[in-house]
């Protein structure tokens, strides 16, 4: 399972960077989104995957018994997803503003037309 997720995260990073090198704003933003999700998946995978073992102490025990799913990476990913979503929404609005003002979403044309 780790291997599949690691490959998926790598693919997300790769496509994210590739799209960010393109010339159009829309592709750049999709690239940004893929990149941040690649990072999220990586945190999740690097923290270790444990299925169906909630980190809850059983009623008759006083200690948490291994193996259990580490809650910290999940908390980190949750925070990162929320932040990533907000930032992505902002950059979409910004790109929309540029598109309405410049009439194009080609980065080179925006630059040559700008004063």
């Amino acid at each position: 399972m780790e291997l599949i997720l690691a490959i998926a995260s790598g693919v997300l990073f790769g496509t994210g960077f590739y799209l960010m090198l393109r010339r159009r704003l829309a592709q750049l933003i999709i690239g940004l989104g893929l990149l941040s999700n690649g990072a999220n998946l990586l945190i999740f995978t690097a923290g270790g995957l444990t299925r169906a073992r909630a980190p809850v102490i059983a009623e008759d025990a006083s200690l948490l018994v291994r193996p259990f799913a580490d809650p910290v990476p999940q908390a980190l990913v949750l925070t990162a997803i929320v932040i990533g979503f907000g930032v992505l929404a902002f950059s979409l609005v910004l790109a929309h503003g540029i598109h309405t003002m410049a009439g194009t979403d080609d980065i080179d044309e925006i630059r040559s037309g700008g004063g």
Partner: protein
Amino acid sequence: MNVLVLPIALPLFTAAVLLLAPSRPLLQRWISFAGACALAIAAVLVFVRVERDGILVLQLGGWPAPFGITLVADVLSAMLVVATAVVGLAVASSAFSGVDPRREGFGYHGLIHVLLMGVSGAFLTGDLFNLYVWFEVMLVASFVLMALHRTRAQLEAAFKYVALNLIASSLFLTTLGLLYGGTGALNMAELATILPACENTAYETILAMLFLTAFGIKAAMFPLFFWLPASYHTPPAAVGAVFAGLLTKVGVYSMIRVFTLLFPGDPAMLYTLLLAQAGCTMIVGLVGALAQRDFRRILSFNLVGHLGYTTVGVALGTSAAMAGSIFYILHHIAAITNLYLISGVFLRLRHTTSLTELGSIFRERPLVAILAAIPVFSLAGVPPLSGFIGKLALVRGAFGAGAWWTGGIILAVSLLTLLSMARLWSESFWKTAPHGDKSRLPGVILLPIAFLSAITVAMTVAAGPLYQLAMKTSDQLLNPALYIDAVLKGGPQP
């Protein structure tokens, strides 16, 4: 109430009040100014406590160290929080001379305080993931501040700024994932006990390089600095001032903090690489500055170049060089913020900052010229001003560490800075302007400029004690055991 929360809680409170208060400009400006004053008092309070009791530690929510989020203030953090408050005070008072009404209607004052909160939080946190969150708080506020106005050049600049900073954030997040996966820790003090003992050099190398790249983009180091000169000249003067004064310094601070704690040895030639980067940053920044013909673009390139100075200390790792860098950071925050505010005077008078349109200020407005002369010549490193003292300390530190090349570069780049600033001075203040002034100048615009100039002068007069303080800071940084013990074993509670 706990003193260490105040530099974060007060700006948040001010921002909330600003959102709820009626949007009458004058009222908003006064609330913002009062909030900045409160932040300044809180920052000084933290600083005094740190001076008296040593490293202050606060375990939020009462969770003991590696499990909860820790706030830590050592001398470096406390000094930088004070510097943040000073910049905040200057920027809040600069609003009295007028803010673009469109911007003010969209919550300009509140955003400034959110930005200050993010910066203070980044300086005070002892947890790496929390540092990421403060980075984002700071960035989102800066994104909005930069994009609020809708001229085409500003939007384009904002987009470059946003895209590059988001890549840096993603890289930082990736690093944190790998870091947690490998060590199971995010608390900086705990990591400082785990990572240096780590046998896996490949893992250490990957982490060090990812940190170097992520912080390198934030701190605008060569070769990752291009977003800064492409964007910092477009927002209004006050926004540019707070960006230039604080944002890149947070990147530099993170480098100093993370590298001294996590990589005290020299894994993967991290410090050699950083030193080379610092050298290139200085040269490229100042050569770039000489090629520019616009006041604010010259400042942007100078800002980039001088960020090299601020990282030489951590790269060399000797007490003297580190102290020189820290002194330079403090001097640079005051001087560059002031210069960006001065560009606001030009925008007001001539509606442009292109050097060809400037001039005649010295003859027509001697007061402005005299106030501006202090940061200009301080940045240029003219004795006896604070910039000269910082550079002297840095050059002595570099030669003392046997880094002849670095010392040589610092000296050569100082000469280039002098050249760049001399040209800036003669073009914008000295020569006769081709056209006269287009608007009147409100007197209040000079208040924050005078305030920051006074601080630069105070840094010059009190250079001795300030340098002592920088020495104390660098000794603290080079002895991470102090920080680790304070966090994990419990230092004095604030």
